[in-house]
């Protein structure tokens, strides 16, 4: 039971995390390889203030604000770069954040990490049930926000920018401003996902926010179908349940060591096959501009 809830909670957190990335990657066409940096910022912001005694809702709010502000500061110079250069800069950004967390020991306790992060508690429910309810509500609310944002003119402009920046400019749209706002919003929700993760896992250290997590979340988006609301949801559900499901393979004890390697190989294979066979992901974006 608790284990089932645990899987559901992980799924929900990854749904939120990958959906926030989808906003940038799927809608605005920004290949942000540094999204895990904002996840880390959110996790640390919320963890630090709640360990100091502030309430969890305050911590989560702060994690969104801090991630959004850092997102703005990051996007401002970096969005002068386009295409691949943006991807490289974002990758470097995530590594910078990790090193910062590792070395600014007065603030983050460095490699010691932060133990004893308060867990979500409501109505005297069991720990996982309480976390599930709160995380479910927040994730649903966030997805609603995404839906509203994306069906507004703002969302349609993002798609236009992704398809053709010149056309967008010809329509009088300030492309850089749109992208900066997208990154700020995406980072805020990425930060929220990080905050929730920190309160659920209960212990964070800089090593948790590695490149591996970036790859995993990109897989969630690309597998499910970028540029769609349901794509990342489906992608996250698949990635998490398949990953955990491998624990139930009836393997002898001496073989369990191989499971993780099988998992990585499987994910890699899926990614390659997707790119070759179905680059749009499982859920294809509707109303795609028809190529002539």
């Amino acid at each position, binding site marked *: *039971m*608790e*284990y*089932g809830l*645990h*899987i559901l909670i*992980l799924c929900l957190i990854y749904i939120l995390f990958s959906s926030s990335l989808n906003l940038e990657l799927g809608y605005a066409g920004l290949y942000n390889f540094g999204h895990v940096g904002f996840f880390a910022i959110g996790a640390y912001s919320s963890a630090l203030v709640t360990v100091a005694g502030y309430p969890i809702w305050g911590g989560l709010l702060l994690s969104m604000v801090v991630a959004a502000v850092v997102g703005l500061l990051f996007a401002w110079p970096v969005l002068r770069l386009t295409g691949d250069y943006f991807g490289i800069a974002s990758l470097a950004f995530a590594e910078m954040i990790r090193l910062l967390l*590792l*070395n600014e*020991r007065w603030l983050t306790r*460095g*490699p*010691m*990490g932060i*133990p*004893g992060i308060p*867990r979500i508690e409501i109505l005297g429910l069991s*720990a996982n049930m309480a976390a599930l309810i709160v995380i479910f509500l927040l994730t649903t609310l966030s997805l609603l926000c995404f839906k509203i944002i994306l069906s507004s003119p703002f969302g349609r402009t993002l798609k236009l920018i992704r398809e053709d920046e010149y056309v967008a400019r010809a329509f009088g749209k300030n492309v850089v401003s749109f992208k900066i706002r997208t990154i700020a919003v995406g980072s805020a929700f990425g930060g929220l996902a990080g905050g929730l993760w920190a309160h659920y*896992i*209960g*212990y*964070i*250290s800089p*090593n*948790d926010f590695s490149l591996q997590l970036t790859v995993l979340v990109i897989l969630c988006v690309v597998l499910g179908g970028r540029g769609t609301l349901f794509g990342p949801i489906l992608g996250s559900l698949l990635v998490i349940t398949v990953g*955990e499901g491998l*624990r139930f393979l009836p393997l002898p*004890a001496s073989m*369990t*060591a*191989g*499971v*993780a*390697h099988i998992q990585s190989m499987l994910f890699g294979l899926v990614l390659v096959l997707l790119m070759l066979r179905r680059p749009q992901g499982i859920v294809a974006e509707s109303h795609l501009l028809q190529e002539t």
Partner: protein
Amino acid sequence: MKRITCALFCFFLATAAYAETVKIGAVQPLSGKISVYGEGFQRAINLAVEEVNAAGGIKGKNLEVVYEDNLSTAQGTVSALQKLISIEKLPVIIGPAASSNFLAACPIAQREKTIFIGSESAASDISQCGSYVFRVFPSDMLQGIGVAELAEELGYKEVALTYINNDWGVGLAEVFKQKFNGKIIEEFAHDEGKADYRSELMRLKRKKPVAVVNLTYIKEGGTLLKQAYEMKFTPKWLMGSAAKSPKLVELAGKTAEGIIGTYPTFSKEGDRYEHYKTAFAAKYPEKKLPIFGEYNYDMVHLLAKALNNAEAFNADAIRAALMESSKGFVGITGDKTFDENGDVGATYGRWTVKDGKIVEY
């Protein structure tokens, strides 16, 4: 029909055999960054389990360990632990190598009232985990004090301090700073796994320290010593347990001569250690003795003793039995009597390098 009956019979046999085991869980890094620890631990645990079963098992039943991989990550540790607690419903779970992963899991074990026992996790924070959390490995606290005492006994009033930038290094350095009655003239962390530490060494050299406390790992230690020698920087090096390896001497060559370090010691002589060594070699002829394997071996034997003494197979009964059974339990790694935090004591030995060999100081 015959075939079906046969299959059914086999099934019942299998379930009958299944019912005859006492299961405990283990969360270990079997893949990922520190899987080398997890694999070694698994071997030592399996060896001890085999011995326990050969000696009659747990009240006549066989002991069995259910392993879950934590992928060397905190999230993986939580997943693995949740599965062992809620699906397998095991009251005793062996915790993973690496303090950071152990710390992620211990609040859950405490909350779910499950015995969580570690064999390598050294972080001093673990002492505060709660009443269901134990470890058979000494806390960093003790080694930090050991290094401080070493420096004082050698008569150093001023030392420079550098340490590897991970939970082990930083934790140890913090304790050292508190306990050392002298001046620390320079202090910084160095990153793991670099090929070049010349700028760090320059920083040390400028302060002209007589002695440098260098709490680092094997590869980093070798590189640091070698490059220091090349820069004609030859202070007295004081080191911790993690660098104590013939590999360090191999990497650093004659520059390693004369360094002094501390380590949690246990006698590698005597019949019982000899027995462990030969048993391991017989079971795994191609494998070297794993680092900290002895602690895992002791842990399983201690657990088996507690399980045999426990009045019932539930966490509270086992917890009481574990406290009781540990009193005066001397394994190959020494006395494993738990204190009120579930910690054990340790004797710290000192090592030095003489003629290219690691010897007792």
